[in-house]
C-alpha cells in the first residue's frame, strides 16, 4: 500500500465528487415546481468507492465532499441540511450492501431516496413542522428515477475500472 498514491487517489475521487456536485448546480431544475431537487450525481463516486474500496473510503469522500461544497458555494445551514442527507444515504447503502440482496442499481436507488429523506427529516427538525409530506412524495419519485440512472452509471464504472489501476 503506497501512501502517497492512495492520498492522490482519494483526492481525485473527492475532486470528482465535488465537480459532479457543481455540475448539478449548473443544470436546469429537473422539476421546477419543487426546487431543490438534485440528481445526486456525486453518488456515482460514492457507490463506486463503496463497492470497490469499502465503506470507510466511501464515508470519508462523501463527508469531505459535502463539507467542501457547502463551504465553497453555500452556508452553514445548507451544510447541516446536506450532511444529514449524506449520512443517512451512506448508512442505508452500507447496510444494504452488507445484506447483499440488491444490485448496485437497487443500492443506489435506496441511497438516492435516503439522501432526500435525510434532508427532509432535518428540515422537519429545524422548522419544527411535520408538514413536509408533499416534498417527501415528490422526492421519492425523482430520487428513484435518478437513482436508477446513477446506479447504472455506477455499476458500469464498478465493472469496467480494472483492479490494477486501484492497486497502490
Amino acid at each position, binding site marked *: 500500500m503506497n501512501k502517497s498514491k492512495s492520498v492522490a487517489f482519494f483526492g481525485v475521487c473527492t475532486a470528482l465528487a465535488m465537480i459532479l456536485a457543481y455540475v448539478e448546480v449548473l443544470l436546469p431544475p429537473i422539476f*421546477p415546481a*419543487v426546487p431543490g431537487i438534485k440528481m445526486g450525481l456525486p453518488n456515482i463516486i460514492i457507490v463506486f468507492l463503496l463497492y470497490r474500496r469499502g465503506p470507510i473510503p466511501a464515508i470519508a469522500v462523501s463527508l469531505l465532499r459535502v463539507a467542501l461544497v457547502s463551504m465553497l458555494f453555500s452556508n452553514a445551514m445548507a451544510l447541516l441540511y446536506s450532511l444529514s442527507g449524506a449520512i443517512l444515504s451512506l448508512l442505508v447503502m452500507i447496510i444494504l450492501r452488507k445484506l447483499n440482496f*440488491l444490485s448496485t442499481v*437497487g443500492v443506489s436507488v*435506496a441511497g438516492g431516496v435516503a439522501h432526500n429523506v435525510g434532508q427532509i427529516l432535518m428540515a422537519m427538525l429545524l422548522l419544527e413542522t411535520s408538514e413536509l409530506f*408533499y416534498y417527501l412524495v*415528490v422526492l*421519492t419519485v425523482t430520487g*428513484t428515477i435518478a437513482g436508477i440512472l446513477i446506479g447504472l452509471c455506477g455499476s458500469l464504472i464498478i465493472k469496467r475500472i480494472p483492479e490494477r489501476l486501484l492497486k497502490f
Partner: protein
Amino acid sequence: MINMKIDSTKKHNRNDIIFIVALLLIATFGALYLFVFRDGGNTVKVTVDGKTYGVYSLNENITEDIHTGNGNLNRLVIRDGKAYMETATCPDGICVSHKPIFRDGESIVCLPNKVVVTVTTTDTDSPDVVI
C-alpha cells in the same frame, strides 16, 4: 478482485425491480392522497421558527410582509385562492420559485428564513356559504 460478481445475479436484479416498484407504489399512494383525495383548504397558516406568525383566509386577496428578524423579509401573496411567496431575502430563493399552493396540507418552506406557509382547513366558515 473484490466482489466482481456480487451484483450480477438474476436474483439481485429481480429484487431490484421489486424494491423499485415498491418505492414507486408507496409514492403513488402518497401522491393519490395528496392530489386526489384532498380538497382545497381555506386557511393559510404562517409560522416563523416554529412559532405561529399569522393565520389568513385563502379566499381574500392579500399581500403580507413576513418579517423574520435580522432584516429578513418574505412577502406572501394570496390571490385567487392560491398562496405564493412573491419575494424573499433568502439566498436560495427556493420559496419564491415554489408553485402556488391551495390544497389542504400543502406548504412552502423557506429554510434560510425559517418560514413555513401551510394551507389548512378550518371549520369557521359555515359550509352553506361555499359556492
